[in-house]
């Protein structure tokens, strides 16, 4: 394919992307309650004549398809509607704002690309050494900081406290109007936003560069370069970097949406008159035409930027790899078409269309129609379906179960729990689909599944109907689902113990994995023990005066805490001295012993507290922690022979480690006493102060972690399911489905997902489900790409050919051979997606789109921002939630990166 062809192809793709974005735009705003015409009519601020004109131009009184056509024509010709809030055509507002945003984004992004690439280069070249650790740390920290929080932080430090930069937002109408003065004024307002955006973007670019370079460094031509006698610097700059830049250029282009997302947050906090601020206003005033137009403009900008980057790519790569990828779809011939038009397929298509029609016409019966269609298909193919069910059931024959019991006990566990799970889920799906108990039942199931709220709901049924419902509900009970899932997982893991253990050991052996797991475990602990740790009810107002600073610790508690901390620090100091003096290390056995003692103690401590407060989940978790500690203790019960002498040799580090242990134990104990004892023993004491309503900040922090974790995890599950399915199907089947799915993925890659999320969350009613849904369905493109890439290489392996020649079906091959091979990569990606989901959740909360009834870190920051915490220097409202978000995200992404290093074949050390 010539260059000309590729250029044309790219442009066509860009146009398609914009078209899809426009369609999404159209669909979203027609999902609103009421139709656009009535929305317009209800707005008292818009003059009749203008209303008439808008209705005329957009054909709002016409049928849907004409509306759609007019919408496309209008938007493409630059007529973007009339803003509800500004009462002028949207295009008049948008263009100047767009320029301002470009002025903000461009320098900051370029600077951070340069810095990021530099850091990535340094880190990759010295992989595993100090430089790499520092580089990775910087990348992960900057990646984890939400830009809006960093903006708040910078304003408080540099503008409020140090008075270095103006606190008032930039307004082109105010201030000096002569050229020099104007620009100086602008510049003084832009320094901080630039700095924030620069820092916030470094991490992404550094990580991209590091991974690309690691891939290149293991290539053969790098050995040639070294053998040629090139210096290290030349090897890196002249041989490796030009190669690494090829993928980096595209990935950076695809990540332009990331800079836009950062810029939106920065603009909001700095009140910078850019397009992000406009978006914020649009959400605030529910100004739908404005939102619609903003989304459109942002997409256009990103698509154009991408197009430019794409052409840069051709300048960089002599091989023009991309061209060859596209030919795939041309191989189709009519025999596949004939295969496609099998009677059954036709019926299927007919049913799908029928269902779609039925859904639109009678949305209440959607479950029923789909269920009936599925039933119809099953009846039509009863032979195959029956056979399938029989083969499935055959493995539950007594003989087979006996065999499993004798040989693979853990697999038996998986087997049985899967049976329970399938019955449970079938009943659930059947009830949901039939709709006999209404939406409330399903929602309550979902709430109970993610751990908030009870099940079954009281729907006002009586007598036999009630007992039938309770009976059915107990078969489809969410806790049964959770238990079956957990048991089958345990069975699967224990069944392949040696393999999992190997990976786990590798994972824990990396400092990143160890540290990340510890951080995440801390927050999970907070979520579980939240109820007993939070001294006040987080929603209770006026637990003290509003805006109270964090109180100093009472003297006796100070003594208690400082004893533990002192011992801890002393231990660490001695350990460091021993390390520097190169004294012999403590025997590993001893360290393990101490660790298990700490874990067991933690279990006892938390258990006794949970018991005294009658907190069941806390008790269960504590027992589990205690058992882990005891298990480790028992595992290390036998002492090696020359143990005492070894201990004597390494006395310094042994003493230090013992001190650390004692310090840790006493610190944990005293901290718990301080935290939980407060409201009763020391009324009016607030360890982190109070907010504008006199609520206790610390309690809000502790409870807030739950929402963040729940949304993060559930959204991740949705994302991973969609991403894995799409990646698997695209990669495995190739051809037409691949081209189609990947184009689709590319579109979602390019469209600024955060903007979609913000807009969609603004349109839908604010609730935790909205957040989960919105984050879940828009985060999958990267997963789909990664999975597809890996499937493409696996599918070529000979063993897949072997299974196919034996007669394995596609589904069988995918489930049994391809998926397990991709699994490690999926696991690693899951963790990284979780980090992204959590970050999105915090940002959406900050935009005021969170559940108003639930406290989360993002909402806390939203309220702090709205309450003017920055200008009044109320640091205790801003710092704690932000730092908590950063630490949690760091923990999660560290885990993800540690797993990625093990699982990703491209990163594996050679």
């Amino acid at each position, binding site marked *: 394919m010539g260059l000309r062809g590729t250029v044309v192809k790219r442009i066509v793709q860009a146009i398609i992307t914009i078209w899809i974005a426009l369609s999404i735009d159209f669909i979203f705003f027609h999902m609103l309650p009421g139709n656009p015409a009535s929305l317009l009519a209800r707005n008292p601020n818009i003059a009749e004549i203008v209303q008439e004109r808008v209705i005329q131009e957009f054909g709002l009184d016409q049928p849907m398809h004409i509306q759609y056509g007019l919408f496309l024509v209008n938007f493409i010709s630059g007529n973007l509607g009339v803003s509800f809030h500004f009462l002028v055509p949207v295009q008049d507002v948008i263009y100047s704002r767009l320029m301002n945003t470009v002025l903000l984004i461009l320098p900051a992004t370029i600077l951070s690309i340069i810095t990021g690439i530099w850091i990535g280069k340094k880190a990759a070249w010295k992989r595993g050494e100090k430089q790499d650790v520092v580089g990775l740390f910087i990348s992960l920290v900057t990646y984890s900081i939400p830009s809006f929080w960093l903006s708040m932080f910078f304003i408080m430090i540099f503008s409020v406290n140090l008075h270095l930069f103006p606190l008032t937002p930039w307004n082109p109408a105010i201030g000096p109007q002569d050229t020099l003065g104007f620009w100086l004024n602008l510049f003084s307002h832009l320094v901080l936003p630039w700095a924030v955006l620069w820092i916030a973007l470094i991490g992404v670019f550094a990580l991209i560069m590091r991974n690309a370079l690691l891939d290149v460094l293991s*290539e*053969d*031509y790098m*050995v*040639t*370069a*070294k*053998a*040629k*006698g*090139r*210096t290290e610097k030349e090897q890196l700059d*002249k*041989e490796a970097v*030009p*190669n690494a830049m*090829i993928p980096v250029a595209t990935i950076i282009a695809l990540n332009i949406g990331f800079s836009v997302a950062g810029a939106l947050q920065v603009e909001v906090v700095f009140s910078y008159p850019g397009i992000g601020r406009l978006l914020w206003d649009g959400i605030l005033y529910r100004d739908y035409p404005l939102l619609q137009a903003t989304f459109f403009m942002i997409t256009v900008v990103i698509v154009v930027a991408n197009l430019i980057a794409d052409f840069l790519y051709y300048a*960089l*790569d*002599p*091989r023009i790899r991309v061209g060859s990828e596209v030919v795939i779809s041309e191989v189709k011939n009519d025999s596949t078409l004939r295969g496609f038009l099998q009677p059954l397929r036709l019926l299927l298509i007919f049913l799908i269309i029928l269902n779609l029609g039925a859904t639109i016409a009678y949305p209440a019966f959607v479950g029923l129609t789909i269920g009936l269609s599925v039933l119809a298909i099953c009846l039509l193919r009863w032979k195959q379906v029956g056979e399938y069910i029989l083969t499935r059931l055959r493995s539950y024959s007594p003989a087979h179960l006996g065999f499993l019991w004798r040989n693979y006990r853990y697999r038996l566990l998986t087997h049985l729990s899967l049976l329970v799970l399938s019955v449970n889920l079938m009943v659930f799906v059947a009830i949901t689909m039939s709709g006999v108990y209404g939406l409330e039942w399903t929602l309550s199931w979902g709430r109970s599944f993610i751990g908030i709220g009870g099940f079954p709901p009281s729907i006002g049924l009586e007598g036999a109907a009630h007992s039938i419902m309770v009976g059915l509900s107990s078969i489809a009970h969410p806790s049964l689902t959770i238990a079956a899932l957990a048991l089958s997982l345990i069975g699967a893991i224990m069944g392949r113990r040696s393999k999992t253990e190997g990976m786990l050991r590798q994972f824990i052996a990396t400092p990143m994995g160890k540290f990340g797991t510890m951080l995440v475990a801390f927050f999970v602990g907070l979520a579980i023990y939240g109820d007993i740790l939070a001294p006040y009810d987080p929603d209770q107002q006026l637990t003290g005066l509003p805006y109270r600073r964090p109180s100093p610790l009472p003297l006796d508690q100070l003594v208690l805490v400082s004893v533990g901390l002192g011992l801890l620090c002393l231990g660490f100091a001695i350990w460091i001295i021993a390390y520097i003096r190169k004294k012999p290390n403590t025997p590993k056995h001893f360290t393990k012993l101490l660790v298990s003692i700490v874990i067991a103690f933690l279990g006892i401590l938390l258990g006794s507290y949970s018991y005294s407060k009658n907190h069941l989940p806390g008790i269960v978790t504590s027992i589990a922690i205690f058992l882990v500690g005891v298990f480790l203790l028992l595992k290390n019960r036998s002492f090696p022979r020359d143990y005492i002498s070894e201990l004597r040799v390494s006395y310094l580090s042994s003493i230090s480690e013992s001190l650390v242990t004692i310090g840790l134990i006493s610190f944990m104990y005293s901290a718990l006493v301080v935290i939980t004892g407060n409201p009763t023993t020391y009324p009016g004491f607030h360890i982190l102060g109070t907010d504008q309503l006199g609520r206790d900040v610390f309690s809000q922090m502790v409870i807030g972690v739950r929402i963040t974790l729940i949304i993060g995890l559930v959204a991740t599950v949705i994302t991973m399911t969609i991403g894995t399915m799409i990646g698997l199907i695209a990669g495995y089947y190739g051809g037409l489905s691949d081209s189609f799915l990947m184009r689709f993925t590319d579109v979602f890659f390019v469209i600024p997902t955060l903007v979609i999320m913000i807009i969609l969350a603004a349109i839908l009613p604010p609730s935790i489900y909205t957040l989960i849904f919105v984050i879940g369905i828009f985060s999958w493109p990267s997963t789909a790409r990664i999975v597809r890439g890996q499937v493409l290489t696996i599918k070529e392996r000979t063993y897949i050919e072997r299974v196919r020649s034996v007669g394995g079906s596609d589904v069988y091959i995918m489930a049994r051979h391809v998926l397990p091979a991709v699994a490690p990569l999926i696991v690693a990606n899951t963790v990284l997606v979780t980090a992204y989901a959590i970050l999105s959740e915090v940002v959406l909360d900050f935009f005021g789109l969170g559940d108003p009834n639930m406290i989360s870190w993002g909402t806390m920051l939203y309220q702090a921002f709205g309450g003017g915490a920055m200008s009044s220097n109320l640091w205790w409202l801003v710092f704690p939630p932000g730092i908590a978000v950063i630490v949690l995200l760091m923990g999660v992404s560290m885990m993800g990166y540690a797993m990625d290093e093990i699982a990703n074949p491209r990163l594996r050390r050679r």
Partner: protein
Amino acid sequence: MTEDVLEIRNLYISYQTKQGKVKAAEDVSFKIRCGDFVGLSGESGCGKTTTALAVMHLLPKEGIVEGGEILFNGRNVLEYKDQEVREYLWRDVSMIFQGAMNALNPVHKVIDQMTTAIQIHEGVSHEEARERSLELIDSVGIDIARAGGYPHEMSGGMKQRLMIALALVCHPSLVIADEPTTALDVMVQAQILELLKQLRNRTNLSLLLITHDLSVIAETCDHTIIMYAGRIVEMGSTSKIFSDPEHPYTMKLISSFPSILSDKGIDYIPGNPPDLINPPSGCRFHPRCDFTINQCKENSPPLEEQDNHLVACWRRSDI
């Protein structure tokens, strides 16, 4: 000319792995005289490539030279400082890599990769370097019009020939060729072998040819070294080794090679290559050898010379 270009004395190399220390080369000693072509063979993982990489200072981080000397024109290469190493590489010793497909940088033009190699080592002008590269490209039988192309525009055989040209570009006294013909089809293999033969006839170059394909060695080399499990087991002139091998391993190796003409049965060596973390005691080959006696299990046989032919076997005279 009977000077030794390269002399390796009692080289010990091991790889540090999680499972333990892998003894990749033990007590390896041999000489390459100026103008000689020496073949180094043995099964996979016997230390051929490790030895070559040590000569090139290219051992991976885990590889440690535990003892011995590598003398290049009388100077110990292992004691070179970084700067000296860089000067020595490619100017004195160059290497043709295994799988040349990937040994050329895909983003640079072929001709540029050659000229930079010259310019790194010699203070010549760009034009002169270019001139010399073009001459070499021509001499390996590639149309000089293709020189401005990128590696991906060349076929596998062309890439391999270009790699040879690249190795010769600084006029080194020794070239190490690591599996130069593996993964090439037979016709291309023949071309490459022909090229190597021409080199031997026309220049004063020494070549260390590493391959597990004995026929390649038989075709091109003056001397042959056979390694097994990190040790040299037999060393001597190629004709002698192929006509009258004395070490049981060499015998097996040669007889396990299929012949297209005769319909002799193909022999094979029972068992697996030894685990180099815990190598077998005594002679490394004894668990798989047909002639094992007790002494083989206890003591490692020394490499003994007899009529310029070195063999490490206790039962050399018996077999």
